[in-house]
C-alpha cells in the first residue's frame, strides 16, 4: 500500500505539489495530468529522490522505479547493468541470475543480455529500465512516462507486462498519454497544478463526459454556443469534437477517457 499524506514540494518560490493526499492499494494506477502538473515531482517524492517540504509518504519496502529519463553506462552489458541494480536491491547472489533473466525475458531482452548498453537503441535502453524496475519482485512500481521512446509494438508489450502484474504489486504509471492510461490502468488519478483533481476510473471518466461531447460539422462552427472547449479538429473532414455542458449544433459523440479528463481540466487551463 502507498500512502501519500498532504505532501508539498517547492522549488524556490514555485509550489509544485500542494497538499497531495493519496492512498493506493493493490492495482494499476494511472497518474494523469498535463505537462508541469507535478506528476514527475510526485513520482520522485514517492521514490525517495526528493524529500518533500511537507507531508508524509509511506511506501512498501521494495520499490521499482523507472524515471522519466533512464540511462546507464554504455560500457556495461545489459546483464552487468541489471546485476548492478540487483546488488542495489540486495537480491541474494545465488538468485540474482534467475531474477535478472526473468526480468529480461519479460521485456524481451534475454537474447541481448551480453550486448553493451551503448549498442542498444533508445527503445531497448528504455526496456532495460523497465526490466530493472521489475527486478526484485517490488511491491510498488513507479514508472514515469514509461512508453516514451517506445514503438507501438513495444508499447503493446509494455501494456502486457503491466497486465501480467495485476494482482501483484501496486503500479503507478505517470503519463500525459491518455490512451496508455485507458488501456492499462484500473484507477486514474488526475493531477493538475500540483493538486489532485480527482481519483476515478476510466469508466467513470467516460460516464461523466457522457452527453457532453459533440461532433460538430465544420460549417457550423459559428453556431457553437459558449462556453465550449474544442477537443480537436478532425483532419480531412474538418469535423470539430467539442466538449460542452450546453447543447451544440452537432451529434453527441461517444465519450472517451480523454474527454472525461478534459472535463476536469478545462477552465483551469
Amino acid at each position: 500500500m502507498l500512502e501519500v499524506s498532504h505532501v508539498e514540494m517547492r522549488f524556490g518560490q514555485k509550489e509544485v505539489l500542494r497538499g497531495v493526499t493519496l492512498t493506493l492499494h493493490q492495482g494499476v494506477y494511472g497518474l494523469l495530468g498535463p505537462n508541469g502538473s507535478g506528476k514527475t515531482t510526485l513520482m520522485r517524492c514517492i521514490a525517495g529522490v526528493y524529500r518533500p517540504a511537507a507531508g508524509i509518504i509511506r511506501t512498501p519496502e521494495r520499490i521499482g522505479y523507472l524515471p522519466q529519463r533512464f540511462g546507464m553506462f554504455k560500457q556495461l552489458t545489459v546483464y552487468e547493468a541489471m546485476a548492478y541494480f540487483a546488488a542495489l536491491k540486495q537480491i541474494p547472489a545465488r538468485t540474482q541470475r534467475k531474477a535478472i533473466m526473468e526480468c529480461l525475458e519479460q521485456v524481451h531482452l534475454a537474447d541481448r543480455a551480453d550486448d553493451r548498453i551503448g549498442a542498444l537503441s533508445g527503445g531497448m535502453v528504455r526496456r532495460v529500465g523497465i526490466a530493472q524496475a521489475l527486478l526484485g519482485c517490488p511491491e510498488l512500481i513507479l514508472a514515469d512516462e514509461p512508453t516514451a521512446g517506445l514503438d507501438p509494438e513495444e508499447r503493446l508489450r509494455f501494456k502486457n507486462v503491466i497486465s501480467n502484474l495485476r494482482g501483484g504489486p501496486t503500479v503507478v504509471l505517470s503519463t500525459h498519454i491518455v490512451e496508455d492510461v485507458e488501456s492499462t490502468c484500473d484507477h486514474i488519478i488526475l493531477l493538475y497544478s500540483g493538486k489532485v483533481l480527482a481519483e476515478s476510473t476510466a469508466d467513470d471518466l467516460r460516464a461523466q463526459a457522457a452527453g457532453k461531447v459533440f461532433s460538430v460539422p465544420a460549417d457550423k462552427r459559428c453556431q457553437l454556443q459558449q462556453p465550449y472547449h474544442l477537443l480537436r479538429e478532425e483532419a480531412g473532414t474538418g469535423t470539430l469534437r467539442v466538449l460542452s455542458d450546453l447543447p451544440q449544433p452537432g451529434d453527441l459523440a461517444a465519450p472517451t477517457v480523454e474527454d472525461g479528463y478534459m472535463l476536469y481540466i478545462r477552465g483551469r487551463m
Partner: protein
Amino acid sequence: MIRSIRVSNRVFYRGLSLPMSYGLVLAATLASLIRLTQGALSPVDYLTDSLKLGIFGVLYFALAGYELTSMLRKLGGQECLSAFPGAQCGLLFSHILVLLPLLAVWSAVIFGGQVIYFFQQGLDYPPYLLHCLLAVMLYCLLPGLDGLLLGALLERTERPSAYGTVVLAVLLSSSVCDELFAGSSLFGVSPMAVLDWFHLTVPNGNWMADANYGVPMEFCRWCLAAFWCLVLTSVLLWQYRRDGGRAVPIAAAILLAAALLCAARFALRGEDDLLLKDSRPDGILSSEYQYRANHPTGELGVADFSVEEYDLKITAKGALKVSTTVNLSRDDLREYRFTLYHGYEVSSVTDERGAALPFTRDGDFLDISAPDGAKAFTVLYSGKGWKYIANEQAITLPGYFPYYPIPGHLALWADGSAQTVTGLPPARFRVEVTSPRTVFSNLPKTGHNQFEGVAEAVTLYAGLVDETVRGRASYICSPVGREQIESIDLERADRLWQEWCEITGETRTLDLAGKTVFIQPDTISACGKGDSESVVIFDDHILLANMNSTPETICAYYLLEYLPSDAERGLLRDVFKQDLVVGIGNWSGEKPDYDALQILREYPSMDALNEIGDEEQWFAAVEQYTSASERFHALYAWQCSQLGRDTVLREVYQYLKDSTPSQDQVTFLYDLGGAS
C-alpha cells in the same frame, strides 16, 4: 560496494579516452624520468625535477575524476540511482577507488625512478630513499588525490565550468604563480600569503635543489596537503549527506574538523623556519637584503670580555629554539655586549642566580645590563636564521654565523653580502640538540646529538648529511649532492700552500690536514654569499661553500681573504686567482698594446660601465671592455712567459696586498719587469 567498484572498473577500462589518456600520461612520465637520467644530475636534482611531474597527476586525475563521476548524470542514469539510498555515494566513491590504484601506480613509477637512479649512481645512503618516498607522497600522490577529489566534487558541474576550474586549480597548485607573483606585494601584503594555500606541487622547482635539505617537506606542508584532502572529502560527503544515512554527515563533520586543525597549523607557518627560495619578501632571496637596507649596522666594537664556556640546548623543530648559558671571563662589568643574529628573538636573560636581567636588542646586537656584575648568563631565544636554516628537516648552522651570542658588536653584513665571524678565542662548548635528525658537529660526540669540546666555534649540520672519512680527514656533506669530495685533498692543499707562501712571501700558516670538512649546501651560495664565506677555516674544521672545491680553490681563497677588495683592482685579482686555480697559460704572441687597454683604466670593472647612461654607448662599451679584458689576460700570460710565473705571482700578490697602490692595475701589469 563491491558491485559498484566492479561497475566503475568496467566503465573505466572499457572506455577509450580515459585509459588511453592515462597510458599517455604514464608513458610521458616514464619518458621524462628516463630522459632526466641522461642529464648527469645529482640525485637530489633528479628528485626535484622528477617531482615536477606531480602536476600531471593533479591535471589528469582531476579531469578523469570529473569525467568518470559525471558520466552517469550525463547519460540520465543518476535519477534512477538516487532512488536507492547510498547508491550514488557508493558509486562516486567507487569511481574514486578505481582511480586510486592508477594514482598509486603512477606515483610508484616516479618513486621507482628515484630508486633506479639511486642504485645507478652507486649510492649507499638509505635515508635518501625514505626521503624520496616521502617526497613522492607529498608532491605526487597527495596532490593527485586532491585533483581526483576536486574532479569528483565537480561532478554536477557543466563541462566548461569544470574544465575552467581544473585549469585554474592546476595553475594555482603549481609554481607558475610563484614565478608571477612572488616578488609583488599588494597594500603591503604579499600575494604569496594567499597563493601558498593552493601550492601543492614541489616548491622552488626552478631553483637548484639543496642537497643537505632535500625537497622541502616541513610539517606545515603535510598539513596543507592533508587539509585539502580532508576538506574536499568532507564536502563530497556533505553533498551526499542525504544519500548515505546518518554516518555520512557525521563523517563529513569529523573530516572538516580535522581539516580545520590542519589549516590552523598551516596558517601558523609564519613561525616556522621554511626554506623559501623565491623572491617573496620573506624568502631567503630578498628578506635579508631588505632588512639590511632598512637597518644599517650600528657601531661596531670589540668586547672587553670573552666567553669561557657555552652550554647550548638547541631544539630544531619548526624553528630554532635555544637556551644558552655563557660563562664569562669577567664578572665586574655593568654591560656585556654580544652579537646574535637579528632573526632570533630573545625572550629572557637571567644571571647565574636566576635573576632576570634587562637587555636591549638592536639589530644583530644584544646588550645585557648587569648592575651587580654577572659570572654567567642564560639567554633564551628563538627564531629564524635566514639561509642558515634549522628545523625538523635540516640544520645548517656554520660556526661563523652567530646563532649563539658572540662577544662584541661585530659586522654580519657588508657590501651586500654576509660576513663571517672568525678569529675568536677558543671556548669550551657543551651542546645538546633536540632534532629528529642525526646532527654532525666539529666537536667530539658525547651522546646522541650531544657534543662537547674546546673550539673557536661550533658548526652543526643535520639533514641529508653523512660523514665520510678519507685518510685523516672527515667530510660532512650530502651524499646526494653535487659536491665531489674526492677532489678535496687537504694534505695536498697544505703542500700547495707551502709552495705559494714560498712564491708570494705570505707568512700565514694553513694547516688543513686532520680538520673536519663541512661542505656547505647550495642555499648558502644562493644569496648574500660574499667571498669570505667561500672558504672559512677554523682551528678544527673548515667550511666550503663552493661547488667542486679543490686544494687550489681553497688555498686561493685563503690567500686572497685578507687582501683589499677595492673595485679598481678587481680585474687583476680575478686574473691572479684564475692563474692560481687553473693556470693562465703562456702567451707566445706580441705584447698586447697599452692603448687597447685604456677602457680598463677608465672603467676598472664591468659594474663601472653602468655609469654610461646611453644604451647604445653602453653596448659599445661592453663590447670594448670584453675585448680589453681578454687582452688583459693575454698581457698577464705574456708577462708570465717573459718573467716566469713565480715572479709574476709574487709581484702581483705584493701589489694587491698594498692598500695604497701608486699605479692602476693596467699600468702596473704593463710595466711589470720594466716598462717597454
